[in-house]
């Protein structure tokens, strides 16, 4: 006995969810299949004649004009027939005007294979599933941007770490603090840098000067307070006027690998900074970053870097 839904079976409706099962059962039963074919043949006759009823070209044009009059400011796009429509005679407008949502009109009797091709356009569930298609793209885009931003941030941090060191701001301040010196603040100490150890001992300080600067002739020295830290300051001269700063790196929060030189640029002075045996040593003069790099390259042997 055929299902109650049997009368609804048409090739074009067979893939609808309500009919899938009924249609399959009917197709697999010889008697039902024969009845179905008769039903389809009957319907085809009706449908063929129904399809022959169509608005003429002039009628469609009239309809278009009417809609255009209704919306004078926003004329509707021309209503053109589908390219493969059987009602080509009733077509209007330019065939080139692609203002339709066209796909060829469905054949009255479509084979199951044909219907499978059209299936993605037919099932409401699948149409609904198409909506989120943009979401994965958006998600991938967002993830991509996030990854790129993270890489850039990590790269910047690594670069910053490689080109800088902890306490560089304090060194810059220290260099800038020398801008207002008049010379009266210093005590004349004319010796060489190596001999300054004794002078510093008298001041209860234990600063060490790198051996590369041991023979430099000194002019004047002082010990002053800078951010509650004792800082030894030396005016010296070799082939240019130099200013040395010596202090305990822990007092000013400077962390630098022992023996490694870094260049810090202040407002007027540029300084070469290193740490030697627990003393942070800064050699400074008026100039730029490149000048100091050139100076250190000549003064400091590669083994000491």
């Amino acid at each position: 006995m055929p299902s109650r839904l049997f009368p609804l079976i048409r090739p074009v409706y067979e893939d609808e969810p309500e009919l899938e099962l009924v249609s399959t059962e009917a197709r697999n039963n010889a008697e039902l299949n024969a009845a179905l074919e008769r039903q389809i043949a009957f319907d085809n006759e009706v449908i063929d004649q129904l399809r022959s009823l169509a608005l003429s070209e002039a009628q469609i044009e009239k309809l278009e004009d009417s809609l255009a009059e209704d919306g004078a400011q926003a004329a509707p796009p021309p209503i053109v027939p589908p390219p493969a429509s059987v009602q080509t005679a009733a077509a209007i407008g330019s065939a080139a005007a692609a203002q339709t949502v066209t796909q060829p009109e469905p054949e009255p009797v479509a084979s199951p294979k044909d219907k499978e091709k059209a299936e993605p356009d037919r099932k409401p569930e699948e149409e609904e599933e198409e909506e989120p298609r943009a979401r994965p793209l958006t998600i991938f885009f967002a993830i991509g941007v996030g990854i790129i931003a993270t890489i850039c941030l990590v790269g910047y941090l690594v670069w910053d770490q490689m080109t800088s060191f902890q306490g560089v701001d304090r060194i810059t301040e220290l260099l800038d603090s020398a801008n207002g010196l008049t010379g009266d603040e210093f005590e004349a100490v004319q010796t060489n840098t190596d001999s300054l150890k004794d002078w510093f001992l008298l001041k209860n300080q234990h600063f060490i000067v790198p051996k590369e600067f041991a023979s430099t002739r000194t002019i004047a020295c002082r010990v002053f307070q800078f951010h509650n830290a004792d800082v030894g300051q030396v005016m010296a001269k070799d082939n240019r006027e130099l200013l040395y700063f010596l202090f305990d790196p822990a007092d000013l929060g400077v962390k630098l690998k022992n023996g490694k030189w870094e260049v810090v640029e202040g407002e007027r002075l540029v300084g070469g900074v290193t740490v030697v045996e627990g003393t942070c040593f800064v050699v400074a003069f008026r100039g730029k970053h490149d000048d100091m790099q050139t100076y250190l390259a000549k003064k400091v042997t590669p083994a000491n870097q």
Partner: protein
Amino acid sequence: MSGPIEGDSICPLNSVSAYDYIQALYRLCLVQSGSDTAAESAAHDILSEAHKTADRDLANINFNGLFRTAFQRRDSYAKISENKLTDWPRLLHSLPEPQRSTVTLFYLEILPLAFIAEIVGSSIEQLADTIREARSALARARQ
């Protein structure tokens, strides 16, 4: 317009052009009224109203909704003593409403069955009964 037109959150049976929808609407109105001028006028009115509702943008028209409106107005046509329809369309017109509009919607093959059932206010099983009865009536009238 760039893709299949959807309406009432139900997709059309196939991807159908605006042209197809308008011709199908005209066919429904023609079977309902039995008059080509009445059908043309009715199709125009329904489309024009939908066009206004869609901010005069053809792409925004709820094309499925056109058939709901046409179904609701199935009894609004003036009775005519003779119609110009012949053969099967004439026999379709001879069916009583709402059977006439229901089976025509079915034969237009442009809307999903679930949506046709919703338009005519019945279940899918009741729709199948209506189609079976209409088909039998057509066959009897043909003999």
